[in-house]
């Protein structure tokens, strides 16, 4: 469903991603872990064509993302939902209009249908009464959930989550992981999840990629990472710090 092949990206002459390759099968969730500054967010942006890589390609449903015309890229993006690390809510629109934005752009529904769908999605993220509020009036957890609602409302078959629980309290975090789980089990979406919360993604991800300094250090299934002897992967997985990070 998603394939990344030999991706390399330089930033001011320094490589930030080097020969990154992996695949995500349909209906599975890949956990992308690694220390801060390893290039995880950049990788997600390259996958959906927001950033051009210097070499290598990404494929979505077998279609090469790089070199697509703007129209085709737009078409492709209807199939991808992206939950941004810092929510990226439009701060001049209220919550309802934020969530409605992708639907209005798609232009397939009437205003009445859109408002109904927005209300349903607000109910599903447990925030039924905040439609009239603006993003700057919301707490971090609420913004994250609104961002989540906006990313998944067009029912895309692929959803990419960039650190969905960063800076949230444990209760809200577990709620968010429940949403992620429901997305996978009920809608069968394919996804990539960046997270530092190993406990949280242990159960919802099927395979894992550990990225360090722009390189794939580990790529394998849950069983494989549980039993790996690779010290960096063990540190990350079990939270040890017996050895210096990278």
């Amino acid at each position: 469903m998603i394939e990344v092949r030999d991706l390399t990206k330089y930033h001011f002459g320094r490589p930030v991603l080097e020969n990154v390759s992996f695949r995500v099968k349909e209906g599975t969730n890949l956990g992308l872990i690694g220390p801060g500054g390893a290039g995880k967010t950049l990788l997600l942006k390259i996958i959906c064509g927001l950033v051009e890589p210097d070499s290598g390609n990404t494929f979505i449903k077998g279609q090469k993302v790089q070199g697509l015309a703007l129209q085709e890229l737009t078409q492709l993006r209807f199939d991808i939902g992206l939950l941004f690390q810092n929510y990226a809510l439009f701060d001049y629109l209220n919550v309802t209009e934020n969530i409605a934005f992708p639907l209005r752009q798609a232009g397939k529904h009437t205003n009445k249908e859109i408002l109904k769908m927005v209300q349903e999605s607000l109910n599903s993220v447990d925030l039924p009464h905040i439609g009239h509020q603006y993003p700057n009036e919301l707490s971090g957890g609420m913004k994250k959930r609104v961002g989540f609602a906006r990313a998944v409302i067009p029912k895309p078959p692929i959803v990419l989550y960039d650190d969905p629980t960063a800076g949230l309290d444990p209760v809200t975090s577990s709620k968010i992981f429940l949403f992620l789980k429901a997305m996978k089990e009920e809608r069968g979406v394919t996804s990539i999840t960046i997270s530092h919360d190993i406990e949280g993604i242990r159960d919802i991800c099927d395979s894992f990629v550990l990225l360090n300094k722009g390189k794939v250090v580990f790529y394998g299934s849950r069983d494989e990472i549980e039993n790996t002897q690779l010290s960096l992967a063990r540190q990350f997985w079990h939270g040890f710090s017996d050895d210096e990070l990278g």
Partner: protein
Amino acid sequence: MSNQKQAADPRMQEENDQSSAGLVSAFFAAIGEPIVYVTRTVKELSALFLVTIKYVIAGKRRPDEVVAQMFEIGNRSVVFIAVTLGFLGMILIYQAGFQAMKITGDLTLLGALFLQLLMREFGPTITALMIATRVGTGMAAELGSMVVTDQVDAMKMCAAEPIEYLVVPRFIASTIMVIVLTIVAVLISYLAGALTAYTAFDVNFRTYFDLGFVSYFDIIIGLTKALAYGMTIPIIACHAGLNVFGGSEGVGRATTQSVVNASLAVVVIDFIISGLGYVVLALF
């Protein structure tokens, strides 16, 4: 954390670059760099301008958004323009009147010549400089913070093209509003000049409000300038805003870059249109 580091870095880098390079290569670098920068910027700006025009003609029409932007531009700058252009009118009448008193003692043409100069030159140009300052920086800062908070990427993910969605309404609104504000500015400046002429030099209003010198040519030149400025300023400001990188540092950088580039563009366009206008006038 990395942001703070960058905040301290640039000055050190500037100085390091200069001392490490040899004198000759530093000299050529100093000449070449601005040329490369200007060529690249002009290229990018013309590309953005063409895409914007394409969307203006063929894109979705969103009149509500355009009206909202027009209100924003007018609301932000009308008082500012009234104050600055009012003072400009007083200053110019004062200087001109003072000089005329010394040389000829004849002030009957003061108002008529002032109006002509105001329409051809100072009205559109100073208004545009003020709008570049007030509105241009606002646009650059606004779009810049949308870029650094990923809102522009989010827009792309929702299949909304940022140029069509953000630049086009600002472009249309500014094109209209600069013309409107220029007319307002000329009126205010002319009236402020009338009061100054009356209080300082006893020029009565009947003599001052003499429209004898103004021709269609002056009006056309003034409006052409206003039109050109109104199209250039939002393109430069939006370009600066959309190309922000590097957090809050970057937003500050884009804002300053937008004032400087837009003001410089206004002066350059002024020169070009004035020159062409002169040639046209000389031919006919």
